[in-house]
């Protein structure tokens, strides 16, 4: 076991929306360099938990630490500029070119991103540098999400947060982009937190899978442990879906 400070720590973190407890008293350490998937049904609190890391949601009680420092001690916009954020809505700015979209984070803190760096970032998500001058509406959904990933990585973050990043993509694009992100995670030594409702995606990409239900973490295992039957019933029901599908496909083929 390493005794280094965890990259992200939740300390008895709670967030309620009216009467509903979205996240209830969660304590959790995420180690530097890990790829963590937060899995659960809609309303289980997984997105809320992740958004407390970059302060898009503020906890009612408890706190979130990054490298041991309380996130509330940092001005929220500056905090967010130090981490990458990718989400299902993609949210490319429709009035800016691809290059301007990618360079927006550094631009906010007063840095101009050189053309070569933009080309590198495009290359990282397997797009030609000629895309730099295009407008978002000229791109396919998959291409747009690639740009979303490139934008998230533009400021050299240590932390990558992804909220259902591949949810709206077709299966082929989804698979390719998932693998690409995992490769980037390894190459850039990122700490990645990915929210998803797709257990297969979580099992294939993450090193650690957290299953959430009603605002609490009910299972915390590696993919291998989950496949070998560890974890609560909810987790095993989620794992059963892709496993049964794989088995059915194998039976069909034989």
């Amino acid at each position: 076991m390493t005794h280094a400070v965890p990259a992200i720590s939740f300390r008895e973190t709670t967030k309620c929306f009216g009467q509903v407890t979205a996240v209830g008293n969660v304590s959790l350490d995420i180690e530097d360099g890990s790829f963590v998937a937060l899995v659960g049904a809609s309303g289980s609190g997984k997105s809320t938990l992740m958004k407390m890391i970059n302060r898009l949601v503020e906890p009612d009680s408890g706190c979130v630490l990054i490298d041991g420092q309380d996130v509330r001690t940092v001005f929220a916009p500056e905090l967010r500029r130090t981490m990458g954020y990718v989400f299902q809505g993609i949210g490319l700015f429709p009035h800016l070119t691809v290059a301007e979209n990618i360079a927006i984070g550094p631009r906010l803190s007063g840095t101009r991103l050189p053309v070569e760096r933009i080309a590198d970032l495009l290359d990282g998500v397997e797009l030609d540098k000629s895309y730099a001058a295009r407008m978002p509406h000229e791109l396919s959904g998959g291409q747009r999400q690639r740009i979303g990933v490139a934008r998230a990585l533009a400021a050299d973050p240590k932390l990558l947060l992804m909220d259902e990043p591949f949810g709206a993509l077709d299966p082929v694009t989804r698979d390719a982009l998932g693998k690409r992100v995992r490769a980037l995670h390894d190459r850039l030594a990122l700490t990645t937190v990915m929210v998803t409702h797709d257990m297969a995606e979580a099992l294939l990409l993450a090193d650690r899978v957290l299953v959430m239900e009603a605002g609490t973490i009910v299972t915390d295992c590696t993919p291998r442990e989950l496949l070998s039957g560890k974890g609560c019933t909810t987790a095993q029901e989620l794992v059963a879906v892709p496993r049964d599908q794989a088995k059915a496909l194998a039976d069909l083929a034989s």
Partner: protein
Amino acid sequence: MSDIMIALFGLGDKLASHVLLAAAALALGISVALPLAVWASRSPPVAKIVLGFASLVQTIPALALLALFFPILLSLRVVFGEGLPTLGFLPALLALALYALLPILRNSVTAREHMAAGVLEAADGVGMTGWQKLRLVEAPLAAPYIMAGIRTAAVWTIGAATLSTTIGQPSLGDAIFAGLQTQNWALVLAGCIASAGLAIIADTLLGAVERGFAERKKWLIWGGAAIAALGVITAAWSLRDSSDEDPIVIGAKSFSEQYILAQLVGKQLEDAGYAVEYRDGLGSAVVHNALTSSEIDISFDYTGTLWTNQLKRNDNPGREVIYDTLVEWERETTGTLVLGKLGFENAYALAMRQDRAEELGITTIADLARRSSQLTVGGDVEFFDRPEWIAVRDAYGLNFERQRNFTTTFMYDALTGGEADVISAYTSDGRIVADKLMIIEDTKGAFPSYDALLMVSPEAAQDQKLIDTLSPLIGAISVDQMREANLAVDRLDDKQSPRDAAAALATAIGL
């Protein structure tokens, strides 16, 4: 057609004033609406209040909104001092700017409401501060919608600016109001064409800017804005003050007699070397206030009007007593100089077609009262609210079946056309003779006398040369001479302009 062209070419100054007024009102409207829109987009209760207020303003007729600023500014003089203008550019600017608020606000708020949630989340997610989000995301995305609102506001403002004539601000409305009054349709059409053309040009230019924002074409944005700015600058340059001295401002209410008298006095002053400006088409209530506050220097009023409206009296102590009391009252309370009577009377009187009066056997108002429940009475737009009408109505027990308002010109047409049986005519009106009308006798003397007066503002009354120049007009005009001049302007065939009629009148009275 050529009449319209000639009238159009004569509108240069009015057009320039119109452009400046509309542009200034639009600029003020924008500079108030945009910060309000940003505030509203951050706070739903503010959005509700702001949009509610702007909509409320929109339900006030533009004409009333313009007129309302006169008393508002007058009361604000307590705070800002006597120098605060209550007529002309300032109230017109404020009223029109208020009018421009709604379309800009509504479009800005709507644009913000319809902005994709993902884009706004991304703006926060990439680490924008509130200001950066506004500048880099919200403003550029809302710009085409805001421009569409500005376009609508521009067209409304240009249209409503024609009404600023009534509060003494020169605009294309001058031509429309004067033309309507004197049935000079070429002038009316010229005013309408110029104002519509201006609206179309503004709409096209701002439309180009809007498209520039929507399609992100910078040259369209800058091109449209530059041409529009050039137009405004040209208008301002053409109106630059060429004379050093303060002009003498002559006010006129919105009927032919007043236009003619204004031209008569204007010519007299020009000959004496004064620079003269005209504020035609002012509302009757506005004129007196404008004069006592020295916004205008010279006006023409009538003893009966001042007696009832300013002194709030409804008794009738006799012609001379009324006049003397008035002169004294004006000197004591407002400092305004009643220079003297012009010589004729323009009284309110009830008039009918001669044939119709004979048919019904009506010669006095008492006769009329007996038949009034089957008759329709027509009055000019203010008549039925005037104390004179109330006094006459109550004195004779008049109770008409219907009561209808007309502009002065159409009132006479209504009588000859049978739309009204009785109208509130003016005794100096040339149409009484021309249309074969009969004045119904006021045996009880319920209408006060209406001697026409030449009035001079407290400021201008200090100018002895001005007083000397005006003095020959006192007692100089007989009612027949005035009727003839009025008819020359009001008749349908062989019409004269007020200026020509004034020249003829000047000759007739030997000036």
